[in-house]
């Protein structure tokens, strides 16, 4: 193990049990919400002018800081490639994520402008990254330690709009 490998959940043995922080809160969730916490999240720092994300989704947070979101299986390779050019920290274990259908529900969770995503802002008072996949589908990423709380709020908001 190298000195920052303890941050990388994908280096665990196959029999190590990975659990999502949203698992219990979403156990009886209505349709239209899905747990996407098992997403590779790499924080990239440096001069990002040459950053292409190796085919992964790149979210630029500042001129010198970006998140690269990728499939769990690709984290290792992507990490290795990016590390050649940038300072990269594997934060996959630090973020929880959920996918959500319905702009109206999103409007009850955040004051971010759905027409100006991706963006970072408060979702139910927790700093979150919000992305738009299509007209009605959104992904929310937030610190995993708030995951259970955020999931509860999202489920509650959906139920408040009639979802069951």
């Amino acid at each position, binding site marked *: 193990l190298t000195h920052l490998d*303890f941050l990388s959940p994908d280096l665990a043995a196959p029999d190590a049990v990975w659990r999502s922080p949203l698992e219990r809160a979403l156990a009886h969730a209505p349709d239209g919400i899905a747990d996407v916490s098992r997403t590779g999240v790499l924080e990239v720092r440096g001069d990002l002018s040459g950053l292409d994300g190796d085919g992964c989704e790149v979210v630029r947070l500042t001129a010198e800081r970006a998140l690269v979101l990728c499939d769990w299986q690709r984290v290792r390779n992507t990490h290795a490639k990016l590390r050649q050019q940038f300072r990269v920290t594997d934060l996959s274990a630090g973020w929880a994520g959920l996918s959500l259908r319905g702009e109206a529900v999103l409007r009850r969770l955040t004051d971010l402008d759905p027409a100006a995503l991706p963006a970072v802002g408060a979702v*139910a008072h927790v700093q979150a990254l919000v992305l738009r996949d299509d007209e009605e589908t959104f992904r929310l990423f937030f610190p995993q330690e708030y995951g259970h709380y955020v999931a509860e709020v999202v489920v509650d908001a959906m139920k408040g709009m009639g979802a069951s």
Partner: protein
Amino acid sequence: VTGFEGDSIASALFGEGQRIFSRSFKYHRPRGLLCCRGACPNCMVRVDGVPNVRSCVTPLREGQRVEAQNVWGSLDFDFLSVTDKFGGPFTPVGFYYRTMIRPRRAWPLYEKFLRSVAGLGKVDEHRGRTQRYDVEHRRAEVLVIGGGRAGLEAARRHAAEGRHAVLVDPDPDGEEPGVELVRGTAIGIYEGGLVPVDSGTVLYRFRAERVVVAAGGIEQPLVFPGNDLVGVMLPSAVRRLVGRWSLKPGTRAVVVSADDRGLDTAALLERAGTQVAGAIDLRASRVRQIAAKGRGGRLHSVELDGRKVDCDLLVTSGGRQPAYALLAHAGGRVEYDHARGIFVPTELPKNVEAVGAAAGELGEAAVPAATYNGAAKGGKCFVCICEDVTDKDIKRAIAEGFDSIELAKRYTTVTMGPCQGKLCHLPSIRLYARENETDEASIGTTTARQPWQPVELGLLAGRAQEPAQRTSIHHRHKELGARMMWTGSWRRPHSYGDPGAEAKNVHDSLGVIDVSTLGKLVVGGPDAAAFLERLYPNRFGDMKPGRIRYGVLGSDAGRIMDDGTIARLADDDYYVTTTSTGAGAVLEWFEWWNAVWGMEVRIVNVTGAVAAVNVAGPNARELMTRLTDLDVSNEAFGYLDAKHAQVVGVPALILRIGFVGELGYEIHFPSPYGEHLWDAVLEQGAELGAQPFGLEPQRILRLEKMHILIGQDTDSESNAFEASMPWIVKLDKEDFVGKWSLEHVQERGFREQLVGFEMANGVVPPEGGQIVVGGRPGGRVTSSRWSAQLGKAIGMAWVPPDLAEDGAEIAIKVDGGVEKARVRLRAFFDPDGEHLRS
């Protein structure tokens, strides 16, 4: 009550013959429908347990329970109306500042009485949450407030120019192509074009690039004796009763109005079958005295300059005042127009527009007199019907020296009632101007504040949301029966049932604690070592990779901010832990200094990404051999070493440290494997006596070692020298944050010192308790616990420096008495650290 579709509660009641709807705030006078458009307080009732519901704008629903409020007795006979008949001399304006003060011992009785009669409506404390309220964030290029003719035209205009226009109105009509209609009431305008809209159960928080205020004008009442009698109405009430609900407002009416809108109600009334005994146009007829007369609080006649006219309906209007409050919220300027006798908006922010009556586009109207009571002696003459403020109250306030309208507002409470000044702002300023022999422009306006319309507190509160941080092992703690507690916004186990036994198990065999809440930062880059050297008072540049050092973070003033361990993982990478609640502040502090110094350092917060479990106790090493292939012998993995290894298949950083005083390993690993690792630790440690322990036993254990807790044993004034940690301050370093201040502390000498103490008689003193020196307060206890391991009550305290001697006797205040204790300067348990290093 029987009603029709489209009825409001008030219209249904009125149709059934109900005329008294409420009792007034102070005098408990009967009150009937006045405005019928949700502006006044007269129709407020309690509906299904919710107080202060404006029944004139609340739709009638099957099964509603409607009750009168602010009544002692019934609407027809209210016992507290005695204050109207006899209380006048005893309850003048501001009486509550001057009366019921003496005798002081009677205050509880006064208070009980005042609380029972004060306020409007009663909240049922035991009712709980009965209604779901939500908040929804919306955006609009143009938000039009008010769906009258002017508002609709503005919305159409903006929509035609290709903008997303939203029109907000309590009762929008049909559909409007290109315009989104939202049913609701704007309750204010805030910075950044934020307009909250009350739609009943959802609060829409609109962010609008441009706001158009088309809130219309507000018909102003005239001020004359008896102007609050049941049967005295504003034209709006007549229009809605007749036009909307086909109700006949009265049998015989008199209309007195300053404008055409008021006078037009005469024709409306005649069509409804009401006999109109007279219609007075104040523009043409110079009336000096109006006096409404009634019986049982209900109008039966009106005297106009002494001429009596029998009537049960008196429609009065002093013309309209532009509804400018929303414009004022937005920063608009309002000035008095002498010619028209109204306040009009003059300058508006560039993203705010006013149209129609709200902009001052009103028809020709007379400027009414401040009052119409002339020289005649009549009944009460209300300037503010919400708060029962009469013209006499205003005059008295002026006589008492409240010569500014802002002061008078606070003293008399005029404009501070449910109408928020809609019906009393202009009349009170007119009266103020007249009594001060000046003009209204000189008096000026009071500050318009949100909310512009009454709003339910539940709606403002929205859903109950309390962000909680949970470790990835949280649910396991609950399954183990942990009593959870808050530390900052973290949920942590206080204990699993018996804190003393949990602490003892750490000493005797093996304890396991979830320390994932620790703040964790990776500080990397070529300047990382130099960066930490500048931030901390001790050294980090000379550490070898794989070593750990304790650090106390100080402010510029040398005060202790936080503490934690710093592990050097590689030449350019350090792993910094902070206190559980200090992570955010430390991260900010680091980033701020990094920005100032411009060093090549990157700071990444990995607090949530990394879970951590501490295993501590004599059996900890044996457990580690079962969890990992790593050589954990003392020779290979010594105290304050950091090593990488797979622990039960999970990549981990293992820190050999010991906050709780026993041989211990802190395992840091990716959070999603929290339960996996925790389960494995307890399972494989079962025969070694592994038991979880919570925060409370941890506090006992750390106190035995005299390890400080930031914020508990220190405060915003504490520095490392006086906190008895001089060994951590390296004044021979070139520079570090707070160095100058610590040098100064050393030069001036200590003023107090943090020490340990043992109680002589085993009594545990209260945390925060006084250290008594010469009969006076000389210090304070910061931590105290009973240590079963030591069989003693121990603690830490700030004491004067001359008492900071090992064995010195100190006195501590306990339960009103004074108990003796001995000062200890070394750890109570294992002072030489043999257990830690074993």
